[in-house]
């Protein structure tokens, strides 16, 4: 029983980490239909700038806020310098650009930060909590609360504010949105800022568990992308639920089957779900009206 609980706790922790990354994918996708493969690098930048801010003597919160800010600036630069000039290209080409940006950012990070690994102090201390024989890291609680809070904030923003309506409008039809007086350019720029902030915050809260390095983004982006697809690309709730499913299936297959096959098991589950729900669990079918 305590084994089952331990696998579940581990799965939820890892799943929430994937969910936090997956959330970042949804925002840019919603505004522009671009899957931003540099999302993992936003996570890395948030973590690494915080690590280096602290190593230069800044207090933790200041370093974190600064890191989030810098990551947002990098994201704006990505949009203005790489995505926007190619705005008339098909979405497919824009996605390739984000892959290029991801490789570029990783390379620059390797030169700037080196190839070593870093950690951040856990916010609530490193003692773990005992639940019926299973242990939970305190930092896992921070990850869970942060991810859920970001999810809630995003939901409020998207469905309850005029700004959110603008994002939805821009995503549906840029031309119509422009004619209704919506500044599509600043909407999309805003979506890049939001995605970057979500990524950077995610990076900062997961580093005490997962550690940070210049190439941490690759795997996180892959798992986050899988989670977002599983939940239905563009749906924030789906992103987090998708992350949880990926994390739990990994933990249980590592626990009950074999750790050799845990990634394979997770991806087989994703494939099976996508066979049954081609748009993901929470994704809506898209209809084109003629």
């Amino acid at each position, binding site marked *: 029983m305590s084994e089952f609980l331990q696998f579940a706790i581990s799965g939820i922790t890892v799943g929430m980490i994937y969910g936090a990354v997956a959330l970042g994918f949804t925002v840019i996708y919603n505004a522009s239909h671009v899957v931003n493969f540099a999302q993992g690098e936003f996570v890395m930048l948030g973590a690494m700038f915080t690590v280096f801010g602290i190593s230069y003597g800044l207090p933790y919160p200041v370093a974190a806020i600064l890191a989030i800010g810098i990551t947002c600036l990098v994201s704006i630069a990505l949009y203005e310098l790489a995505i926007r000039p190619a705005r008339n290209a098909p979405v497919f080409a824009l996605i390739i650009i984000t892959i290029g940006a991801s490789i570029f950012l990783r390379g620059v990070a390797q030169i700037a930060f080196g190839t070593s690994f*870093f*950690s951040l102090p856990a916010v609530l201390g490193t003692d773990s909590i005992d639940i019926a024989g299973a*242990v939970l890291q305190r930092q896992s609680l921070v990850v869970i609360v942060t991810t859920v809070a970001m999810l809630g904030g995003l939901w409020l923003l998207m469905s309850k504010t005029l700004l959110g309506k603008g994002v939805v409008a821009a995503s549906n039809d840029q031309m119509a949105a422009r004619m209704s007086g919506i500044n599509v350019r600043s909407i999309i720029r805003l979506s890049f800022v939001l995605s970057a902030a979500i990524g950077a915050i995610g990076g900062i809260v997961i580093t005490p568990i997962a*550690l940070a390095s210049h190439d941490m983004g690759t795997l996180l982006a892959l798992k986050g992308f899988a989670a977002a697809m599983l939940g239905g690309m563009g749906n924030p709730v789906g992103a987090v639920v998708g992350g949880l499913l990926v994390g739990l299936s990994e933990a249980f297959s590592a626990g009950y089957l074999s750790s050799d096959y845990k990634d394979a098991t997770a991806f087989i589950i994703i494939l099976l779900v996508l066979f049954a729900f081609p748009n993901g669990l929470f994704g809506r079918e898209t209809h084109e009206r003629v």
Partner: protein
Amino acid sequence: MNKLKLFAAAAVTALSAASAAQAADPIRIGAVISKTGPAAFLGEPQDITLRHYVDKINADGGLLGRQIELIIYDDATNANNARTFSTRLVEEDKVVAMIGASTTGATLAIAPVFEDAEIPMVSLGAGLAIVEPVRPYVFKTPHTDQLVCNKTITHMKSQGYDEIALITGTGGIGKSMRKECTAAAEAAGIKIIADETFNPKDVDMSPQLTRIKGTEGVDAVFVGGFGQPLAVVTRNYAQLGLPFPQYHSHGSASKVYVDLSEGAAEGVLVTGPLLVVASHLDDSNPLKAAAVEYSDTYTELTGEVVSSFGGYAYDALLLITNAITTAGSDDPAAIRDAIEATQNLPGVTGMFNMSASDHLGIDQDSLFMVVVKDGNWVMVE
């Protein structure tokens, strides 16, 4: 007549000038290093080490009264590039000996080039396949994973452990550790009763460790792999409170591992290479002086803590320069014979004793079992 005299005089002058140039001709040593690309963590310290020590030898008067010319190519962690540069070193640069490549894969790709050209090469790759079977012109300096496993298993045996659990990475180093340590355990009569793996970028190893914890009869756990997951394993190990002794491979023999484990590494046993533990050795140990000198020099040069990888390059250069001095010649065949005859040469990886059947030349006595105490390494007897 006068013209002829003039011509003869000119010819004599030219000839003597040529022979003077001959005497001052540098000894050309080549190197193919992975300075960039995924194996940059190997190649960068190697590049720094080679350049520094060749400059130092030249400043001290060179070898056989001649300067060394070091020709380094960066293969960008690509075996194809390594092969191209190797051909260039042989055909255009006409080197007399070669250092590299940084990885086992690239070494195996370029070995035939130097075998055909009959020019000795000293590889910096860890794989056993480089020197087994022995190729006449191919040598290497790094420990093999086999040596590390033998050392670890010998210690486990001495403690009376006969049932152990493995948890290893699925990357190249982890896979190799799993294979070699399974073989070493079998040979020593130790049973492996749990065999778990983790991905090189995994963020949580609790499920695997929970399985090990629930396995009946585990005496000790061996952790093999490279990089950040090792610290994650150690953290999760402490969180879950596994009661067994924890052994790590040389991948954990770094300050970074201890720091990242944040106290969870206390009591962890690591099979460490000479460079990591050099300053803890007795002054009477013949291996100490060179290792401490190299370690200090490297830190002075880069501001970073020394790595074993740079040390492999130090030893490769040492083997070659030592061979040129003892052979008194820069003829490739003579250098090869002298490298093979190397005896009791203290390098920074270990004591080199080459022979016709052993082109690695170091044994498990150059590895040291250390334990983490108060965030520092302490030697285990």
